[in-house]
């Protein structure tokens, strides 16, 4: 059954991967992957990957894989190829959560976890065009699975399991050095097991023997993971013991993107946000079923750990449960504790979604099988199925902008607009551009064929060429004075409010919420249609905001 579901997911990926837009980070990751491949093909003489933007501080494992995949996928263009790869890797993540659910609570829980994650709109939406958070989350899910398997085999996990665990953690590290947290989890699990075994025997000799074993396992897995991580990270290869930690230190205080954003009823800088940023986003962007079952699972898990965790026969399930809980709650709590600047919803914490879903599925299945009456169990399964079907319907309605999903606790997408970030990644821009093209064809057909249209907006002109013909061009390529005919604006940085006096000709809408608007600037004076003119005429900020938001540095860099 799970294989059939996975096959259906794969077919959906193959059918839809071209429909997802190019996001901000992708062009740079494509270039970084190319530079890493050049590092190898030039015999380590092409050092472009060692200094490339800020990317050199990230492992480029996925980017290198992308470069290889693009070479195989020729003549498919770079962005579609990388979207296809993202979709395939995302399906691998689905498989990982299925295995994790199975390892925790059997095949039924595994299947439920698989279905829940597939229908999790935020996860599905990120699979295709998020070259960092999504592959990291996939490697994180597989690492957790192999860690659960290794816990089941303690005190002597098989070499095969440890090798797979090392590869999975290494792949996570090769996307983000924050994967070190997995090694911390492993150390904690091994340490707790050794302490428990020694406590049972009341023997220092037993403690020493178990600690030696734990150290050997930990050192072996760490060494293997480190080696895998270095393959895709040329900068770290030059000083493998120091540079990854330098990167970790720099990434922990990452403040390159300072931006204002809506949050609840305010408009805040991302370094001003409080502890409640992530709880808000997880609370409103997690499907209701997953959220409720996660709460049930957390309470049940804590109670189970307190009641039975110390018993010898329960030590392995307890460790697995503890690992799952830590993998969900420790990273966000640590980010709050460190006061890390946060933005783009919980995109950077996408990796906690698979364990979250796994815990929710385990709790859901456990609750249902505990029902005594057969009809009650049937009714509970039917209710679960109905909620999942509803989620599928929402996902289809949002397609291909599943990342903007908000649950009914806030009133869906329409309820979130103005209060939270929706399309922070520019996924709606292609649909807006195609809408503009369709509008022009329908309304100005007699001049369409002989016209070149210049647009501005918070988007990459080059990326848009994938979706619309080349008579739609960035205003930067206009001969003479650089002014625009149309403005395409999504909601991030209040890009949609630019050119307030221009008529709107098209809007990208989902579930009653406007995500992107196209404005016709051609009737305005030319001085209003330049970037300088646009900045001058920005509408006044909302009362709650201290200052008018501006297009962030990052967006300006590629705008148009």
């Amino acid at each position, binding site marked *: 059954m799970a294989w059939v579901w996975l096959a259906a997911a794969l077919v959906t990926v*193959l059918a839809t991967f071209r429909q997802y837009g190019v996001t901000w980070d992708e062009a740079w990751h494509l270039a970084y992957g190319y530079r890493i491949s050049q590092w190898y093909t030039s015999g380590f003489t092409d050092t472009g990957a060692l200094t490339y933007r800020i990317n050199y501080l990230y492992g480029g494992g996925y980017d290198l894989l992308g470069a290889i995949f693009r070479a195989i*996928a020729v003549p498919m263009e770079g962005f579609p190829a990388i979207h296809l790869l993202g979709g395939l890797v995302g399906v691998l993540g689905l498989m990982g959560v299925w295995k994790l659910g199975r390892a925790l609570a059997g095949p039924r829980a595994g299947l439920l976890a698989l279905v829940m994650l597939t229908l999790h709109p935020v996860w599905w939406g990120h699979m295709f065009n998020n070259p960092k958070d999504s592959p990291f989350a996939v490697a994180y899910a597989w690492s957790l699975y192999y860690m659960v398997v290794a816990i089941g085999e303690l*005190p002597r996990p098989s070499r095969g399991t440890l090798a797979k665990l090392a590869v999975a953690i290494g792949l996570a590290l090769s996307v983000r050095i924050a994967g070190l947290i997995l090694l911390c989890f492993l150390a904690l699990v091994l340490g707790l097991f050794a302490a428990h075994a020694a406590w049972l025997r009341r023997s220092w000799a037993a403690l020493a023997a178990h600690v030696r074993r734990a150290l050997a396992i930990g050192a072996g897995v760490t060494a293997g993971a480190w080696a895998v991580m270095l393959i895709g990270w040329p900068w770290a290869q030059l000083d493998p013991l120091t540079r990854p930690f330098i990167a970790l230190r720099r990434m922990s205080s990452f403040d390159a993107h300072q931006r204002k954003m809506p949050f609840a009823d305010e408009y805040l800088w991302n370094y001003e946000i409080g502890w409640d940023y992530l709880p808000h986003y997880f609370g409103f962007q997690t499907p209701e079923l997953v959220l409720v079952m996660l709460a049930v699972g957390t309470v049940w898990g804590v109670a189970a750990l307190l009641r039975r965790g110390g018993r010898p026969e329960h030590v392995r399930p307890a460790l697995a449960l503890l690992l799952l809980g830590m993998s969900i709650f420790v990273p966000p709590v640590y980010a709050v504790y460190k006061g890390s600047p946060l933005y783009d919803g919980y995109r950077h914490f996408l990796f906690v979604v698979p364990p979250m879903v796994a815990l929710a599925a385990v709790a859901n299945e456990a609750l249902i099988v505990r029902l005594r009456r057969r009809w009650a169990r049937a009714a509970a399964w039917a209710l679960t199925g109905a909620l999942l079907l509803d989620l599928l319907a929402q996902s289809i309605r949002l397609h291909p902008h599943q990342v903007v999903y908000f649950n009914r606790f806030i009133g869906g997408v329409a309820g979130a607009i103005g209060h939270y970030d929706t399309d922070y990644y520019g996924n709606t821009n292609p649909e807006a551009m195609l809408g503009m093209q369709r509008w022009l064809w329908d309304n100005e057909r007699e001049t369409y064929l002989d016209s070149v249209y210049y647009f501005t907006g918070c988007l990459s002109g080059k990326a848009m060429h994938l979706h619309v*013909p*080349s008579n739609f061009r960035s205003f930067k390529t206009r001969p003479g004075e650089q002014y625009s005919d149309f403005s395409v604006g999504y909601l991030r940085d209040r890009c949609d409010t630019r050119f307030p006096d221009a008529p709107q000709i098209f809007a990208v809408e989902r579930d009653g919420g406007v995500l992107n608007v196209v404005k016709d600037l051609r009737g305005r004076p030319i001085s209003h249609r330049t970037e300088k003119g646009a900045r001058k005429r920005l509408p006044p900020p909302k009362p709650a905001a201290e200052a008018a938001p501006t297009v962030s540095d990052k967006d300006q860099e590629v705008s148009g």
Partner: protein
Amino acid sequence: MMTETQRALTVAEAAHRAARAVTVDPSCEPRSAAHHLVGAWEALARAVCLDGHVPEDISAVGAWLPARLQAAIGPRAVAELGRGLPALQAERARPAWEPGGFPLARGEVEAHTWRLGQLLALARGEAAPRPKWHKQAAIAAAAAAVLLIAVRPWWTLTLQPWRGTYYARSDHSGKWQIRYDRQIDFDWGRDAPMDDVPADRFSVRWDSCLHLDAPTKAIFQSISDDGSRVYVDGDLVVLNRTRGKTQSRGGEAQLEAGVHHVRVDYSEFTGDAHVQVLASFDANDPPKPIPPSMLHAPRGPADEDDPCE
């Protein structure tokens, strides 16, 4: 109702679990697993030897283990198990108060325990005798098939529909090279389109054969920098004259059902170079790239008048 064989296997599995718990525990001496391991062997012998014909000495594993199980785990594993069992029996027979050496290392006892576990699973019928590589090969083949279907590398192996003749001069004359392209959608910027063709002052002539199933009013659009022209069956449909800036021009042609020769001439003088040719075969839709399935490449020489005949 449990049969005698199942009962014996259950005993063997319990003894094996106990042996495994001891062997994997770093604080236990491996020799302390001997008792459980020999117990598991004895129970296994009772389970697999028919009608209670259990040999007195089970140390010669190859003599009493059914051929089916021996074949499933392989002769090497049988030999290794046979080598380890006498040492385990000797350890169990040794009185606890008598000192004595134990010839097996921890790794050997672990390997012995693991193989015995395999054997028990096979005897129970839980482990498939077929090696796992079949399943893995099937998964790998399925993954490769998906990848192939997704990536479609035969696109590069088959002939692309547009025959491009690339000239090293801007007037479609002089030295030329042929390359087959999937679409006319190029943004060369200030680069040369291919080796031996300069970045400035070059030209390209693309030919293809367009298939139409029914009479159609076709709309063609050419967007280029510098100039371009689109001909259908020798008639000029789009004339896009420009130098140094991007310009879009369109044109219509009423075409009968059948095969039509489409020719695109593009010339680059200086500066940036790009060209895109689109078409619409339904008046409700704006022009889009022409689907390669509607086109095929001409097979004859480059200078034919009608290469689609």
